[in-house]
């Protein structure tokens, strides 16, 4: 694995502690997977599973999830195989990263406990992890990428660096916006491939090439399907967001910006639009309203795309008000509720997929649904505390401060894009960035305490004999 031993001082203060990481990841996998086995499945999950059996029909949902289901079935692990794999990978990646960033075992253990505690304190993290959602798989590969990069830095190993780039690539192939999760990590990987700033230009060029190749493959995976490499038609995945925006703008501006085909040609008033509009989810507007024409899920044969830029330009204040209303729901700042903090079942399906432990599943789902709405248990405190920890790391001039700043950049860039692009405010959408914040808190505080303990032990007098 070691490819360059010219600098023998490890770039990370801690060691991987493989045994501890495996034990931790196994315990966490058991806690997540057993009650929900083989994994809660919504329409999205079942559609990806179906495509793993019948072939890729659309790239509206990036096909990487279907490929992972296919691999899981291919190795005989079924649906549950992917569930266990993504959960193990998430916690194993976090554990390896944290151990590499913290020298003392005690503080590493404390950090790992704090990371696990985040899933209990913010139940929507646990609720999301119970489901076969791409948000979880994306996070798992992002955490694995971070771990691989830190291993590459510690051992100056190119294969580990390639693995890190590949992991980030898979994360981006699962969710386009995962690119933003690594928006500062990727440049840092290029500037300091092994976390040392004195990297030669050739090393940086190679790191950049790896990242470009992996993100290029991720992009290609959403345009050409496997195994026949057939080019897939553009799924126009932004049309849903545009339709949501036209609804929100119309409701706010008290004017009708909906193309007639969105209501099958029937006239609709702004009052009726306000009745239908719900910033939690576009789909909620499609529910039949007594005495009002039904709003349809459609791009209205291109009319939505045509009207959208004009409406945004004309009513920019209302556009921002609507997007803010969605963002408030997205970040868990709404007063009364948390929107879909988890999933509690496997939807009816023709594959015979059912929950193995329905009582346990009901118990954990009850816990998530009753605790997640509590204001202090929502994820936004993670986003408020993470910058404080990073600021403390900079104030203490921690060697890992740039890395943590890059992680924080990803954790904020990810929901920042959602502010403009989210067609819904499902809690799961911010799972990757929330997990990144939880990791920054757990690992950052552990690193701070670790270095404080180091300073104290160095400054304290020798023990009396």
């Amino acid at each position, binding site marked *: 694995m070691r490819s360059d031993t010219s600098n023998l001082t490890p770039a990370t203060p801690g060691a991987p502690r493989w045994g501890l990481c495996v034990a931790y990841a196994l315990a966490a996998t058991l806690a997540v997977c057993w009650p929900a086995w083989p994994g809660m499945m919504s329409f999205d999950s079942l559609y990806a599973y179906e495509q793993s059996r019948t072939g890729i029909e659309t790239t509206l949902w990036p096909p990487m999830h279907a490929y992972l289901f296919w691999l899981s079935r291919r190795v005989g692990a079924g649906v549950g195989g992917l569930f266990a794999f993504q959960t193990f990978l998430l916690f194993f990646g976090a554990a390896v990263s944290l151990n590499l960033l913290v020298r003392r075992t005690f503080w590493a253990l404390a950090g790992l406990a704090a990371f696990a505690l985040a899933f209990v304190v913010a139940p929507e993290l646990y609720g999301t992890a119970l489901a076969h959602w791409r948000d979880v798989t994306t996070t798992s590969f992002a955490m694995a990428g971070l771990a691989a990069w830190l291993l590459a830095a510690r051992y100056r190993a190119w294969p580990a660096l390639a693995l890190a780039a590949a992991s980030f690539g898979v994360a981006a192939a699962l969710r386009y916006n995962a690119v933003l999760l690594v928006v500062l990590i990727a440049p840092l990987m290029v500037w300091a491939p092994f976390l040392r700033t004195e990297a030669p230009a050739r090393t940086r060029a190679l790191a950049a090439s790896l990242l470009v190749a992996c993100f290029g493959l991720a992009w290609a995976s959403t345009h050409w399907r496997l195994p026949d490499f057939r080019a897939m038609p553009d799924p126009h995945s932004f049309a849903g967001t545009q339709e949501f925006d036209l609804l929100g703008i119309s409701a706010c501006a008290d004017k009708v910006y909906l193309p*007639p085909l969105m209501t*099958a*040609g*029937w006239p609709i008033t702004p009052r009726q639009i306000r009745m239908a509009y719900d910033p939690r989810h576009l789909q909620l507007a499609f529910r039949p309203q007594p005495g009002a024409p039904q709003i349809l899920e459609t791009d209205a044969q291109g009319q939505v795309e045509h009207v959208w830029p004009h409406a945004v330009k004309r009513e920019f204040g209302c556009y921002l*008000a609507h997007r803010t209303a969605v963002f408030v729901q997205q970040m868990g700042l709404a007063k009364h509720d948390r929107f879909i903090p988890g999933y509690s079942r496997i939807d009816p399906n023709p594959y015979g997929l059912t929950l193995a432990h329905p009582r346990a599943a009901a118990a954990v789902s009850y816990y998530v649904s009753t605790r997640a709405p509590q204001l202090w248990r929502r994820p936004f405190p993670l986003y408020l505390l993470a910058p404080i920890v990073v600021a403390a790391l900079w104030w203490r001039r921690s060697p890992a401060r740039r890395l943590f700043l890059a992680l924080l950049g990803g954790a904020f860039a990810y929901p920042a894009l959602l502010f403009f692009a989210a067609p819904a405010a499902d809690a799961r959408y911010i799972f990757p960035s929330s997990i990144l914040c939880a990791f920054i808190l757990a690992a950052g505080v552990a690193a701070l305490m670790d270095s404080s303990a180091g300073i104290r032990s160095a400054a304290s007098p020798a023990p009396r004999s």
Partner: protein
Amino acid sequence: MAAGLALAALAACDDPAWRNPATSKGTAELTPEVNDAAVAGLVKLRPQNQAKFTVVKPMPPLPDWGQAVLGKSLKGLFPSRAPCIGNVDAVRTRYLGVPEGVTVVGWAWDPQTKAAPPRVLLVDDSFLIRGAGVTGALRPGVPKARPDITSPNVGWEALAPRVVGSLDAWGVLADGKTVCRLGHIAL
């Protein structure tokens, strides 16, 4: 403190006044942006009859025999006429996928054979066949309202690949050669 203020400001957006339907004063008039799209030919004709269901899905395929007569003249295929009882009730489903179309529903009864005509055709103003369907759907309300009709299975459903205009429904009697008019509907 700044973070707290930002949080409070965001939370205030949770239930903004503009979401309240009671305060709306706007009309159904389209904004200039949407009107421009209409002028550009992007907006379709407005249907006259609101369907019970409108779905963004393709219309299901017509039966093979219906596909075979689509576009042909009713007068040419069925020269004989006979009286029968029936009605065109509603546009039940409007399909906005590709192909577009409608499901039209009604009921029919042939007093000669004391049975529902087995098939139904939808015909445009030029007597060209534009849709087809079958009878047999349960309509218990019909024999209740008309005791001379002795079967509840007199309902029919017919598909037509169009969403605007108007159609006449014709029943095809059991001999396969005679048709009877059931009614008219504007889509």
